[in-house]
């Protein structure tokens, strides 16, 4: 694997290989939790903390963990950091915890985190992995916040709790449920495709471990 500069890693994590919109990963908590902007922001920041710490610890331990038990090891480390994030959110931002609390433990099995662990942290240096974790986390946060904001606006007519559209446009609570989340996410991805001129088949940076790679016609190299 040819090494990328830190700046490139940062740009890829946030924009060109945004975990939620481009690689389409970490969708489950996005659909279940990001029903309003503040929840999306809270979950995203918790995930950033976990990704950043995981990047440092896993890349430092990459020669110590035997290949055969790497999945349980990765997940136990993830669960540890998720528990820490859980406590931090519960103590410092209880209002957000009320919305995302039950779903925080599920971060431990978030595919964004495990996929990064499987394909990036175990193959790169500590510094690169830390930058990468931060970039992917911030990209994920941006995605979750945007998704939450759109759903909150259509579903409840508010934005970050402030009434923007309430009374003006009828509220559609469907958008707070799973189908509404899928619909909004699908449409956002389509709009982004249109804006960036990227069709599903064009290479989008990090094909390795991309969820769409299996059906992607223009993937680089290929993995089997």
């Amino acid at each position, binding site marked *: 694997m040819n090494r990328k500069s830190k700046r490139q890693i940062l740009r890829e994590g946030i924009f060109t290989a945004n975990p939620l919109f481009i690689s389409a990963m970490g969708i489950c908590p996005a659909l279940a939790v990001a029903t309003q902007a503040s929840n999306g922001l809270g979950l995203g920041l918790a995930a950033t903390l976990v990704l950043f710490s995981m990047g440092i610890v896993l890349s430092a331990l990459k020669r110590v963990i035997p290949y055969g038990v790497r999945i349980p090891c990765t997940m136990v480390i993830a669960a540890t950091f998720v528990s820490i994030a859980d406590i931090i959110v519960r103590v410092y931002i209880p209002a957000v915890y009320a919305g995302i609390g039950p779903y925080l433990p599920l971060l*431990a099995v978030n595919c964004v985190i495990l996929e990064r662990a499987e394909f990036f942290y175990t193959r790169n240096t500590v510094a690169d992995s830390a930058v990468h974790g931060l970039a992917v986390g911030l990209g994920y946060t941006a995605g979750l916040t945007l998704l939450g904001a759109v759903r909150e606006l259509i579903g409840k007519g508010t934005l970050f709790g402030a009434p923007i559209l309430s009374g003006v446009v009828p509220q559609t609570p469907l958008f707070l449920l799973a189908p509404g989340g899928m619909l909004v996410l*699908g449409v956002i991805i389509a709009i982004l495709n249109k804006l960036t001129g990227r069709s599903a088949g064009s290479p989008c940076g990090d094909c390795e471990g991309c969820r769409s790679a299996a059906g992607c016609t223009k993937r680089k190299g290929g993995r089997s």
Partner: protein
Amino acid sequence: MRDIIVIVVTAVLSDNIVLSQALGVCPMLGTGDKPARALRMGILTALCMIAASALSWPVTTLVLIPMGLEYTRTLVFVLAASSAVQLAETVMRHSFEKSAASLGAYLPLTAANCAILEVCSQSASAQFSFAQCVASAAAGGAGFTLALLLFAGIKEKIASADIPESFRGIAIDLIAAAILSLSFMGFSGIAAGIFGS
């Protein structure tokens, strides 16, 4: 027996883990348009769910609750789920090489399936007996397999349809999943309606 039937109907239809609770959506979107592959993936995940629940139930009931260590629940569930997946991976690589190859990189990522963790966690929260716990894991797995199979069928149709350029790929998949999930909302309350509970 009756409560087990209610658990199964609820988990498969009215409270489907993928389509109603939006958990395990990533594997549904990632498995692709081959129903046979979706079936394999679904059965593998269902077996992992049963194994993980059966592993975590005694630990939760016999160790964590008596000792007041429930706050380590997540760690136990994660460990149970990942051990189950690692076990499945090892068994498949040795005995079913072809199936393992067709699932490829998704096999280890089964561990990242939040549906498995959620099944364990829901059984613990509902304080199920061991039989109810295994039944609900099996039913959750059946619901997961059903969602995967239905979606693979839809993907087959999508593959041959003329989709607007910017909707191709994951966007149209998500919108199709939204419609499928919307249709499953029609099942809500069906268990209460049939069994009057």
